[in-house]
């Protein structure tokens, strides 16, 4: 069987049935850069948004996303295939996110979830931050909804937020989420239910708009 040189990154990708993530990673371990490009295309946006909603900073999220995939590149040989690639990938991302949160605490950054001032009942800082989006007067309702949803998600407790993001953004089953976060499946479902209830409460103003969405 003649040896074939793996295609370089950026070469044209032939149209074939979608290979599994594990198969792509195996090909990448054999030197196929195109396989890794496929993997990156599948997961770059979910991972970036997962981290973005966790750290609430685009630059930090981009750096963390870059670090996630660089770890995949470096530790591809360590992946034994005992779990799904997505589980492994999101475990890396979650650990990086947690490490980043600990560093922020160590550097005494103010938590965006912390109440402003000494008033316990005041709104958190995240609700007072100025968005980078265009002015609200020019926004459509949909655009405002997106901003508010993002803020509502970012305002979720970390354990609920990560479950929500994994399920909502990545579409990961609850069983796989339980593996990623290291919690029982029923706990994951409960966190998801609490997260949805919080979102529903936070976005109550858009209840009338839901009819247009649906």
């Amino acid at each position, binding site marked *: 069987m003649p040896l074939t040189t793996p295609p370089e990154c950026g070469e044209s990708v032939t149209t074939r049935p979608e290979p599994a993530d594990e198969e792509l990673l195996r090909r990448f371990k054999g030197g196929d850069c195109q396989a890794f490009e496929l993997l*990156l295309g599948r997961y770059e946006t979910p991972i970036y948004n997962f981290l973005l909603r966790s750290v609430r900073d685009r630059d930090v999220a981009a750096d963390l996303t*870059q670090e996630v995939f660089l770890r995949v590149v470096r530790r591809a040989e360590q992946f034994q295939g005992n779990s799904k690639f997505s589980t492994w990938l999101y475990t890396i991302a979650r650990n990086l996110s947690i490490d980043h949160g600990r560093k922020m605490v160590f550097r005494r950054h103010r938590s965006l979830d912390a109440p402003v001032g000494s008033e316990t009942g005041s709104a958190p800082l995240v609700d007072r931050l100025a968005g980078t989006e265009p002015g609200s007067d020019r926004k459509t309702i949909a655009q405002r909804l997106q901003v508010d949803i993002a803020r509502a998600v970012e305002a979720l407790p970390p354990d609920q937020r990560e479950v929500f993001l994994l399920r909502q953004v990545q579409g990961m089953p609850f069983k796989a989420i339980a593996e990623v976060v290291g919690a029982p499946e029923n706990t994951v479902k409960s966190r998801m239910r609490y997260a949805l209830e919080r979102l*529903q409460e936070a976005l109550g103003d858009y209840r009338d708009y839901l009819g247009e969405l649906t």
Partner: protein
Amino acid sequence: MTCAHQDRLVELVYDELEPQAAAELRRAVQDCPPCRDALARLEEAKCLADVLPLEPLPSTARETILAAARETAASRRAPEPLPLRLRLARSRAWPPLAMAAVALLAVVVGVSYSPKEEADELARLVPVPRRPRGEASAPPEAPAPRRTEESPPEVRLPERPSAERKPPDETSPVAPAASAQGRRPREEPRLSRRTRASTRSRHPAPPGEPPETATATGGPLGGSPSATRQELADETPASTLRRQTARASGGLGMASPAAVTRPAPPGARRPHLLPTEPPVRVEGTEAPAPTAAEAVEAPQAPASLPVAEALLRLARNYRARGECALAARHYADLRRRFPSAPAIPQALVEEADCRRRLGQLTQAQVLLRQATGYRSTEAVARRELRRVDTLLSAPQRVRRVPAAAAAEAAH
């Protein structure tokens, strides 16, 4: 929310239930107002969550990741297959293989080496003629020796087994016993690898002819292949006389008619003549001195018996040093490997002397009885036999073996 169904509402919202289970749960929720309200809120929240925007990864981060992946993939990519010649030349397995080969060669050489004294003796007695490289199989320049009455027929060491060899039961009477034991009867003397190699190089098969066999050459020592140790033991003076007559007429005493009548092959080398040296004697020992009859009877040292002669001389050297165990072992080796050698009678007597000194009187007695069958050693053997018989019949304390001799024998 105390209803048990509410824990499964999330699965219902995200379609993680089987269709049948989902339908049953929906029917149950319709009958439970709290669950119905909870499901409505969850579905409403999910609809809002679906609007959550997904931002793309910045291109710089993507390019950085791809660059790292390219570099890693290039390092993991299998190199272009080299031609077989280059792969073999660049193979890192050569140094270990070379070292293993050298180690194996050293082991082989070490195993094939005899003890130093024996090797020195063999080297001294069996000089290897030097010849230019590449002539190992070519016949020498010397013409083929003519077989005359004065020049005995060439006696060769047995060649390797060939198709011409007769079955063992036809060549040796001891063969059936060996075959019965599942062993191959040994017909050729056991030589060290180096000696065997040098012997083969010194006695190459003539070109165009198959290598000579023991049958053609008349046995390992030029005698009849059927002349075995047992026959020698049973040899009577009359048969000895016949053998000597045949030797006088045909050269070697036990040469078979085939060997006598067969002309030497063209190109055959003249056999290497052994130096004749007097046997080493030890003062005080009672080894029989060579008699005139023995001197007459002893054939001209067969040119092609370097190993037998070497063994005999080695045994005599050990005996002269008083190392009777080693000497007896070499005598026995000589008898076993060259049962029809001319020096066998004298070797019997000398080995019997060694055995007697080692306290192995019974073995000495047997050896001496065999030696009495030879004319050359008959007198000496009888005298020694009487002495051994006396020792055997003596009380136990007289036959007590010295501790040193016992230790040497045990060794």
